[in-house]
């Protein structure tokens, strides 16, 4: 109650901040800062070698290439949450592609191009393999760190085992390479870095780029929005691997040396350190951080090598423990200009929410609904080791039904929901969604068949805005742009209704973590509805809500089943609520289906009365 009241009081104020300041979203004006920044940076990179001393130019070429790799680490770790120690391996692939080609074949334009192509292909293949290994279903999140740790070790040992072919510990050096002035190397590397950063900047701010943050924040929710997160992560891994390989290629061409250290795990961890110090998830932070750190260490390596390393180590630990966002954002937050700019970009991308005109395809689905049940369970069982939580559950549910599942704690209600939404969950039996058996498919495949699942605790994306959360839910239907943000967001009428009725619309520019508990629940419901599911699974949607909030949700649910012909499955403890809105009730008790009937039948049943008054042993047939 208090929580909600507080929020209601502050929401008008928040509402006045959120609307854009007269900027039409997505126009050139909105993208202007990026273009301007890129041009300025390009200009600076071209002028810099004229004023900086030779040694710094020399070192900076290397720093730029490192920074490009750090950029990929930031995309993987900072944005997507994949802690990788393996980007050095891709850098090494690029470097050795050039080193081996130029040493053993020689420098010709054709060889140079082929070597680059080889580097890209090998890096992409290795990244795909790494991703396939690391992002399989049910694999623990730390496993990706295991794999990316193995990667540079394997790469280094392969270099070692190559004998004179790879130069082993010595590496390869002294091969003929491109004849370029130091200044030109500087400009080349600098422009490459600026363009890569700008591209990454556009990407992470595009609609597609928000998926990365969504995966980091809540991968489970992503999969239940039908997003194939494993494929997205593998694709990202491939792109990042290729960029790192190109940087490595440039490094070898510039320094005329390839050495096992370039592929090693220590370099891989250094990249993570630079990114952490610069500020993970900020792109500019890691780039600037890498350049500053590498340049400073170049100056200090002679005079203060240990102290410098010690300082870096101390700074790194402090940042990880106390300032997980890194140094740069903290420093930058001091400047008001940064804060203003950040708020500006945030506001400028608020899309207009428009109702989705029902497509003709929706109609046949309704027509077919009468013939095929929306949901059919046959003999579903679930075991955890020796513990059996579901015994032989069979029932069907049709379009337009609101089926409540009730039962005491531990009756297996939530397990049942999981078995419907994820093919890996059940131990036995079959589940058909609108006539499609789900088999052993992943949640995202079940979503494709028409399942929408709302979790018990509101599962949203904390650091994304309400509009962004809703956009993610629509991506299955409308593939997002890779470099820009759409001006409009089309939502199904039901989702829009939920957003309107709960007051969510006024908060569409706000980050989800700032929402009240009730609004988070409403947001998740709207997201699930945006999927246009045929079977909607709701696990205690009203837990922890105030009475008016429950009322609102109840009204919406009734309307949904009535008007849009959805099949809703509701798990609920509050039996008053169940009585008000259900068309049918299923009672689960100790993992078995105890009763399946109308509300009146269930409410009047002695069985339910005994279950709820606690004399469980009186329930003879439930004990067998």
């Amino acid at each position: 109650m208090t929580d909600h009241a507080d929020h209601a009081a502050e929401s008008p104020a928040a509402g006045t901040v959120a609307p854009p300041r007269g900027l039409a979203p997505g126009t050139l004006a909105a993208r202007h800062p990026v273009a301007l920044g890129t041009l300025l940076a390009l200009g600076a990179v071209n002028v810099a070698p004229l004023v900086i001393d030779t040694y710094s130019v020399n070192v900076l070429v290397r720093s730029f290439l490192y920074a490009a790799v750090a950029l990929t680490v930031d995309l993987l770790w900072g944005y997507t949450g994949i802690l990788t120690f393996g980007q050095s391996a891709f850098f090494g692939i690029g470097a050795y592609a050039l080193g081996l080609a130029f040493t053993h074949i020689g420098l010709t334009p054709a060889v140079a191009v082929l070597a680059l192509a080889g580097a890209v292909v090998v890096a992409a293949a290795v990244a795909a393999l790494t991703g396939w290994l690391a992002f399989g279903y049910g694999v623990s999140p730390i496993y990706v760190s295991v794999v990316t740790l193995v990667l540079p070790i394997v790469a280094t040992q392969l270099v070692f085992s190559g004998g004179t072919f790879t130069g082993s510990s010595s590496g390869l050096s002294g091969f003929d390479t491109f004849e370029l002035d130091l200044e030109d190397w500087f400009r080349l590397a600098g422009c490459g870095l600026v363009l890569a950063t700008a591209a990454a900047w556009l990407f992470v701010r595009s609609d597609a780029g928000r998926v990365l943050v969504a995966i980091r924040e809540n991968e489970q929710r992503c999969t239940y929005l039908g997003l194939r997160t494993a494929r997205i992560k593998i694709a990202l891994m491939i792109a990042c691997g290729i960029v790192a390989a190109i940087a490595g290629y440039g490094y070898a061409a510039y320094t005329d040396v390839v050495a096992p250290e370039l592929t090693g795990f220590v370099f891989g961890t250094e990249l993570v350190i630079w990114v952490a110090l610069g500020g993970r998830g900020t792109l500019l932070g890691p780039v600037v951080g890498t350049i500053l750190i590498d340049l400073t260490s170049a100056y200090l390596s002679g005079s203060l090598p240990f102290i410098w390393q010690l300082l870096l180590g101390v700074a790194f630990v402090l940042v990880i423990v106390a300032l997980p966002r890194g140094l740069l954002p903290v420093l930058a937050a001091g400047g008001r200009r940064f804060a203003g700019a950040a708020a500006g970009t945030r506001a400028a991308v608020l899309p207009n929410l428009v109702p989705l005109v029902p497509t003709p395809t929706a109609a046949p689905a309704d027509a077919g609904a009468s013939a095929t049940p929306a949901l059919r369970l046959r003999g579903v069982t679930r075991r955890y080791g020796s513990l059996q939580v579901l015994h032989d559950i069979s029932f069907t549910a049709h379009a337009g039904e609101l089926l409540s599942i009730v039962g005491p704690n531990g009756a297996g209600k939530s397990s049942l929901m999981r078995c419907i939404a994820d093919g890996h969950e059940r131990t036995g039996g079959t589940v058909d969604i609108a006539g499609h058996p789900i088999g052993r498919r992943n949640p995202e495949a079940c979503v494709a068949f028409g399942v929408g699942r709302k979790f018990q605790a509101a599962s949203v994306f904390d650091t994304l805005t309400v509009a962004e959360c809703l956009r993610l839910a629509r991506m299955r239907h409308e593939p997002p742009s890779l470099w820009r943000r759409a001006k409009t967001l089309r939502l199904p009428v039901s989702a829009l209704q939920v957003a309107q009725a709960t007051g969510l619309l006024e908060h569409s520019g706000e980050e989800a973590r700032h929402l009240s508990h009730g609004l988070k629940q409403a947001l998740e419901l709207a997201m699930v509805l945006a999927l246009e599911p045929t079977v909607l699974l709701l696990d205690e949607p009203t837990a922890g809500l105030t009475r008016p909030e429950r009322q609102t949700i109840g009204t919406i649910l009734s309307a949904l089943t009535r008007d849009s012909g959805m099949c809703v499955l509701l798990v609920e403890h509050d039996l008053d609520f169940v009585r008000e809105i259900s068309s049918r009730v299923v009672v689960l008790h100790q993992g078995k289906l105890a009763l399946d009937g109308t509300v009146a039948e269930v409410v009047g049943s002695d069985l339910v009365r005994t279950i709820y008054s606690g004399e469980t042993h009186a329930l003879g047939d439930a004990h067998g």
Partner: protein
Amino acid sequence: MQAQILDIATSAAMLYAVAAGLLVIFGVMKIINFAHGAFLTLGGYCALLTTWAGISPWLAFPVAAIVGFIIGALVERFIVRPLYQRPLDAILATWGLGIILGQVITLIFGREVQFVQSPVQGTALVLDTDYSLYRLLLVPGAILVGVALAALLHGTRLGLAARAVIMNEALARGLGIDSDRVRSLTFGLGSALAALAGALITPLSSVDPAMGVPWLVNAFMLVMVAGRSLISLMVATVVLGGAQVLVSSYASPVLGGLTIAVLAAIILRIRPQGFARD
């Protein structure tokens, strides 16, 4: 062949000694201590100090364990404790700690490679093979470490508390067990074991500020595969360590160097829980 059996046994013993400390910390705290390599190095330098002091090389082992314990407990208090909810950050923070320890060691002892005295010299005739006595002694040494750990976990109240925290921390706290203290002691114990392992391996190789790093990765892989059990760690060290020896002997020592890491990655992909029972 006999020599290979001895190689496998002694290599597995070395790996077991090196990985046990990491396993203890991972088991109780669910945190990967990437400063493990630095603690190994610390143990190596403790052995170096005993060599310099001219006292019995056997004393290197208790000295290393004690120093490791004290520093480990301090580290837990000031660096690891804020990170229990952020396991990936804990990996990074402990890695950073490893850098700090390495640099401090460098500042004190210099960068160069140094050597310690071995407590035993010469060879013994086992299985018809003249084999390094020290390496042979590593086998009972590792078994001793394993038995002592098992006794500590299963025969003392601290061990019982630690096991309770591993199994269900919330319940353990509700019964009055101070899980913070258990964790401090556990981290200290894990660090002590790491330092002890460092002292154990140095007579066979050399001491330098980066000596622990190559061991870290193998220990990490073994622990990932072993899960939380000292027994499955033993299985993992024999299987993976054995594979390493065989690949080194029949293919090449260099490929042997990546055997453990690659096998671990494959095993974990097929069976995410590794050699652990469930």
